[in-house]
């Protein structure tokens, strides 16, 4: 303590000031009304008090503060200088001097009861002087009360507006620059408290050049501000200018006020907002229409590129071929990047369900936790928008029907807390979203009974697990024994399935009784452009999405003859159901001498498509067929080839279904 240079300076300075006070007081004895002397006395006390406050010597500050109050009134002529007062003030000097001396001896500041007692008694005598004057103390109290009242108002205001989003309107006074204030510095300081999301400068107040005073400020600002700070803190940024400037600080949409369930989720929300903020700093908002236009153009570019490629192939000029292939590579790159622009992480959609699960746990009294993984997996924005409802349904099903009551779980040696998992990952050409729970799983016999009741299957028909579980996606199928308010109204899984299929995706369920169920949703990576495999049937071209093609086989004459009757072939010793596209699309032209089988796989099922010709890989820009053709089976869209020919894109999931049905018949 002794070696602290600040303290040393304080001790020397205060001793000098005590001396100064003493001298002044002695002078006052002879000339009690001398203003200069009173001022000097006051200033010395004031300086001791101020320094003590800043250096942190509390007892000196407290004591001198009272002395200063008395001196202030002496200065204003409210207290007369008398011999008694001078005597008392001299005692004060002695006391301050001792307090300071103790510091230099390095003693504990609070540890001297005698001194403290002495200080107390002097302070009482001093206060007597102050109280003698009517106005002072009460007015001081009034002041502090006033301040406290103001604070209270502000804090109640704060409670309403914990939104983190603010709109600040600033209109600086003309004189702000002359006052030494730079408007920019406040805005810069503001950005330390949070993020300035938007700033508009209002310059309509600037007069014509001739009338403009370069030393005046004519500017106003509208600021969108994101910050966790409260209103008071933001107001304080402008404390130096608030008197002459028009400032309004408004919270934006205070939707999350005082709703008790939200309060618990608040820290989580804060985290989310923070994460969101971090991300947003590097992003820009773009109108989706603009993106769609861009992707459309990229599509056209891909087609034009295919055309050039074909021409180059035809002309067979080496340098042209080389340029064309360089161009193709670039176009492919652009295509991929353009598609990525539309991709957004699914995490945000997943996080929405935390609240859903929370509410369900509350309503049903079950303790359920939602575990999210793979939130950074990216999906096409269009898909993300449409996947929410099906997911909601699946999660509600899991929470309501899947997870057992806590006591039932404990009886089964499961943890009392149920878990629902949401997971997303990329798997060759598609995105997989899994909703799984550790509940009771699907009940085979109940499904069987229900299916027979509904006439979906015949008694005695034997089904694999997979086929059995697929039944839950049949329209009007719900095995929930009781309809609860959360889920189970008989419209359910079939709607989920339909929604997912409109996204060119598929859904299936895996279940282990007593262990839990997992629903897998498979979605295509992209919505607009695909890598395709082109085949020919008769004079027409068809495109099969490449990621669904497993292999191509030649259908020999013998197989052909044999297969004509049964529509399935032998693939590496396994039964491969197949579909003749020729028959399916009613192609009348003559059969070629050789046919080919393209083996496609979808959702774990292999199916063969019999075609006339294999043309190889193409990039297909998917064009919708329009509303009139949307119900055509087996075709999901069309694409334009390089030479302008239209090729139809095969709806593999639909075809696989058709093959399955044909096998049953």
């Amino acid at each position, binding site marked *: 303590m002794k070696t602290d240079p*600040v303290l040393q300076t304080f001790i020397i300075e205060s001793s000098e000031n005590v001396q100064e006070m003493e001298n002044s007081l002695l002078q006052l004895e002879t000339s009690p009304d001398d203003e200069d002397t009173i001022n000097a006395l006051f*200033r010395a006390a004031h300086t001791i*008090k101020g320094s003590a406050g800043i250096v942190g010597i509390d007892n000196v500050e407290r004591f001198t503060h009272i002395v200063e109050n008395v001196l202030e009134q002496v200065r204003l002529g409210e207290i007369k200088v008398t011999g008694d007062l001078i005597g008392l003030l001299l005692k004060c000097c002695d006391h301050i001097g001792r307090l300071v001396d103790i510091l230099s001896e390095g003693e504990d500041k609070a540890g001297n009861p005698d001194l403290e007692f002495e200080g107390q008694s002097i302070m009482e005598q001093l206060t007597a002087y102050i109280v003698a004057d009517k106005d002072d103390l009460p007015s001081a109290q009034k002041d502090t009360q006033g301040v406290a009242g103001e604070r209270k108002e502000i804090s109640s205001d704060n409670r309403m507006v914990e939104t983190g989003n603010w709109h600040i309107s600033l209109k600086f006074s003309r004189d702000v620059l002359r*006052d030494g204030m730079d408007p920019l510095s406040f805005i810069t300081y503001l950005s330390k408290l949070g993020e300035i999301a938007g700033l508009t400068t209002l310059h309509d107040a600037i007069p014509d050049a001739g009338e403009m005073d370069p030393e005046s400020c004519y500017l106003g600002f509208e600021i969108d501000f994101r910050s966790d700070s409260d209103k008071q803190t933001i107001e304080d940024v402008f404390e130096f200018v608030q008197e002459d400037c028009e400032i309004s600080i408004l919270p934006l949409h205070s939707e999350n006020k005082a709703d008790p369930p939200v309060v618990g989720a608040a820290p989580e929300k804060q985290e989310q907002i923070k994460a969101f903020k971090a991300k947003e700093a590097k992003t820009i908002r773009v109108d989706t229409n603009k993106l769609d236009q861009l992707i459309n153009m990229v599509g056209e570019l891909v087609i034009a590129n295919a055309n050039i490629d074909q021409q180059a192939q035809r002309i067979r000029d080496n340098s042209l071929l080389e340029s064309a292939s360089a161009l193709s590579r670039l176009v492919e790159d652009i295509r991929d990047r353009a598609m990525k622009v539309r991709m957004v992480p699914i995490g945000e959609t997943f996080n929405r369900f935390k609240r859903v699960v929370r509410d369900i746990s509350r309503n049903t009294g079950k303790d359920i936790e939602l575990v999210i993984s793979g939130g950074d997996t990216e999906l096409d924005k269009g898909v993300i928008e449409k996947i929410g409802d099906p997911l909601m349904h699946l999660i509600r099903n899991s929470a309501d029907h899947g997870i057992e009551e806590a006591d039932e779980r404990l009886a089964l040696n499961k943890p009392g807390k149920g878990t629902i998992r949401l997971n997303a990952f990329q798997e060759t050409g598609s995105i997989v979203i899994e909703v799984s729970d550790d509940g009771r799983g699907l009940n085979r016999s109940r499904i069987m009974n229900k299916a027979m009741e509904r006439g979906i299957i015949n008694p005695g028909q034997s089904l694999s697990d997979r086929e059995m579980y697929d039944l839950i996606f049949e329209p009007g199928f719900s095995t929930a024994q009781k309809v609860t308010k959360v889920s189970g109204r008989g419209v359910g899984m079939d709607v989920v399935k339909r929604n997912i299929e409109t996204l060119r995706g598929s859904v299936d369920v895996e279940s282990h009784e007593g262990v839990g169920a997992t629903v897998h949703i498979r979605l295509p990576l992209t919505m607009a452009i695909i890598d395709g495999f082109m085949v020919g049937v008769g004079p027409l071209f068809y495109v099969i999405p490449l990621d669904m093609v497993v292999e191509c086989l030649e259908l020999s004459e013998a197989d052909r003859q044999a297969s004509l009757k049964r529509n399935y072939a032998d693939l590496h010793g396994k039964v491969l159901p197949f579909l003749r596209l020729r028959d399916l699309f009613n192609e009348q032209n003559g059969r070629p001498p050789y046919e080919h089988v393209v083996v496609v796989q979808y959702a774990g099922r292999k199916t063969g498509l019999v075609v006339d010709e294999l043309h190889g890989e193409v990039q297909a820009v998917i064009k919708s067929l329009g509303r009139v053709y949307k119900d055509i089976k087996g075709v999901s869209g069309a694409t334009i080839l390089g030479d302008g020919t239209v090729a139809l894109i095969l709806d593999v999931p639909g075809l696989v279904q058709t093959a399955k049905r044909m096998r049953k018949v």
Partner: protein
Amino acid sequence: MAKTIMIIDDSASIRMVVSIALKKTGYEVIEAKDGKDALGKMTGQKIHLILCDVNMPNMDGISFLKSIKQNQNYKFTPIIMLTTESQEAKKQEGKAAGAKAWVVKPFKPEQMLSAIEKLVLP
């Protein structure tokens, strides 16, 4: 380049506390013990901000403020007045003279720094 701040206060210990805190933050500091001393040290160099006590011998803060507002070189320099809560009358006088920024004594170095940063970043 580091920004320069002038601290004008008759208390050497306040000057010391303030200047230690300012230097630590990265400002250059000029110390003056009263208004007159300060004017003598303002020789045309750029001063980005002035911290000025109100009650000082020789030339008090308000007179200093008035003289700065007349000075072509320094009239746009932001000035933060240091005052105690008991000096309401002085504060009114200072406001009339054009003082906008006030920091109430006693203050913690952090309070002072945050006030300064609203006007000048280090």
